[in-house]
């Protein structure tokens, strides 16, 4: 059983990430349930997704249960930290250095250097997939991204994903 919170601002692609992870897990025959934010908040407001892998019926993670908190916006980390387990890991989109319990990657910067800040969600996905205990391996996610039929999007996403994976090996 693994539980993840993904958070950020509306428009950063949190729902996209949740959907990709859930579909890969579904293809692998796992039980997975998630909850998303829709509606007015997607206009730049605070957004989070819950993703629960295991025999859960409810899509909401109770406080203090998440193994990972993946935050695309540093300002949103504090709004969601109460979902994290005591020994859970925060993965944060930030230019600051990591510290115990906080893994940090400048996903926006890397995405901008690849041509669009909008790729920041896929960069942080690549980085997160290398962490111990993450429910999917880089190879499992990459082979899913390779199935995207629209070439331009596929190429961009794969470059962003690889850059995230690469950033992890450089920081460790």
């Amino acid at each position, binding site marked *: 059983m693994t539980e993840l919170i993904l958070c950020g601002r509306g428009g950063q692609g949190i729902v996209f990430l949740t959907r990709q992870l859930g*579909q890969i897990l579904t293809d692998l025959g796992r039980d997975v349930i*998630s909850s998303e934010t829709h509606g007015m*908040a997607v206009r730049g407001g605070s957004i989070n997704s819950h993703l629960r892998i295991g025999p859960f019926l409810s899509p909401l993670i109770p406080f203090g249960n998440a193994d990972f908190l993946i935050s695309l916006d540093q300002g949103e980390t504090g709004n969601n930290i109460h979902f994290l387990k005591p020994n859970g890991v925060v993965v944060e989109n930030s230019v600051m250095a990591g510290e115990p319990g906080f893994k940090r990657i400048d996903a926006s910067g890397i995405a901008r250097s690849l041509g669009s800040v909008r790729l920041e969600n896929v960069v942080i996905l690549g980085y997160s997939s290398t962490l111990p205990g993450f429910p999917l391996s880089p190879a499992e996610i990459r082979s899913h991204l390779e199935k995207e039929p629209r070439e331009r999007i596929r190429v961009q996403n794969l470059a962003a994903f690889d850059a995230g994976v690469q950033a992890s090996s450089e920081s460790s």
Partner: protein
Amino acid sequence: MTPQKSLPSMFLLGNEAIARGVIEAGCTVAAAYPGTPSSEVLESLVKWKKSLHHPIYLEWSVNEKVAFETAYGASLAGSRSMVAMKMVGLNVASDSVLSAAYLGVRGGLVIVVADDPGPHSSQTEQDSRFFAWFAKLPVLDPCNPQEAKEMAKLAFDLSERYEAPVILRPCLRVCHARQNVPLGNPQPVADAGQFKKNWQRWAAIPKFRLALHEELNQKLAKMRLTEPFAQPEQAAGDGHAALAIITSGSVSSHVRDLVRTDPTAYPVDVYRVRMPFPAHGEALQNIVDAHAKTLVIEETYPVLELHLKDRRKVMGRLTGDVPEQGELTPEIVHHLVAKALGADSGEKTAPEIKARRPSLCPGCPHRSAFFLIKKVFQKAIYTGDIGCYTLGINMGAVDTCLCMGASIGMAGGFVHSPLQRENSTVVATIGDSTFFHAGVPALINAVHTKAPFVLVIMDNGTTAMTGGQPTPAHQELADGSPGVAVNIEQVVRGCGVEFCEVGDPYDYAGFESLLTDAKDYTYGKRKGVSVIIARRPCVQYARVAPSEDKFVVGDECDRCMTCIRDLECPAISFIKPEKKIFINWDLCNSCGFCFQMCPSHAIKKVAVHD
């Protein structure tokens, strides 16, 4: 029989799962008006129709009432039909729905109504199970996406067997949950046979309505007493615990997950009700009688609780044990269960959340329209409406927001009130889709009563808030097939409006001048309502590429803060340590309005080359 293919599972949103159930049930007509959290039901039917080459007819109707009537007409024509809406949409459709309950249906008719406990994206926390009781219609309450798909199919079957419309009531935590959902093979399309004229039923006058009411009551009694899913399902425990929990819908999933984490810590019997109306009151009462205490956990009204005749051992909303408003989150459920067991839940409260408020997008044409409305009509009363542009509240450009279409009706009331006020200027703002939905009758009313207000129709060419669904002004229908575009200015003029002008809200001088003309028409010449259509495609859903222009703030900036305070563009921020205004190119959509608006001409266009 052809062998059925075994199909994979998909990670589906609750609304997508419902749509899949609708297709699998052989439904051939579906109509909806978008509204969070229901919009994805029809959107995913479009996808299933295309990928399965299914013959289902799909439409985004002009409003929920018309959507229901479309589905109802199709049911009489013999089709299995579905209509989807959010719960406040059911208020709009209620006239038709309550009458249809008496008349009954031919092809199975399922009303998908998405509830929003919280509320997260709605005006009310109304409970559609309670509405179903009021309307005397059966209602099914799914606990997650997997069950929602199965219940959609069950609902068609139930509807056809009892010749009654059936409500499927998913809460937001079902609609916007995703889950691995096993796909089934679609059944062949259903056909209840050709419509047979029978005015005593399908056009029943009051004399016949009495008999139809009795017939409906008999249907409900039979359903309650004979349908297996009317019986509460034992979802946890062995029936011997001191505490029973009666629950239904998405909140039942929080209850069951909690109890399963540690059955010794939570020695309870959980009973889940899948059809909360017509509820099997006797079976529920037997549960209460067999346990020392019973806790009722349901959203959002005490529907099951009210079905219990003897409530002396019951804890719920009526006894004040369960909060009367707000979503029942896993933490609240944990607290309620622990309290009922006399244990300490170590009550966990969320830390103070500094939630970022939503805002109109950078480059949103509503922002520039609101900015100029405020400039031309200072200190006016701004009646607003339902859509993205409700966010005009951030700019002080929306003072009221009641329900769909109310901006126009309320503006009439403001200006007709005979009480003297210093400034009786009123500007109503409404989006294009909302105007079609409920604004047209109100506008006719305003013309007829010579109501002196200015109406600005914020025409971004889409239903933006709910995800960019088409409006009647589109050439294309829901599934891309050709329709007839209804021209907004023709509708406005057809309502009897003499002053109707179209302008581009990105055009600072031009749009300001139109607003000034409208002001002169309505308040100078006292000629009644004037209408301006602010036309510019939504930046999220426009099919045109944005301009490549980039903007910077030059040294001329005198920090007047107009761009921060009055324009409120998320791409523009004030950097405190440096006391400088900064334009964030990651967020900027290059609309260029700030460049036109800056009082000290400090915002400059710069050439950007890759």
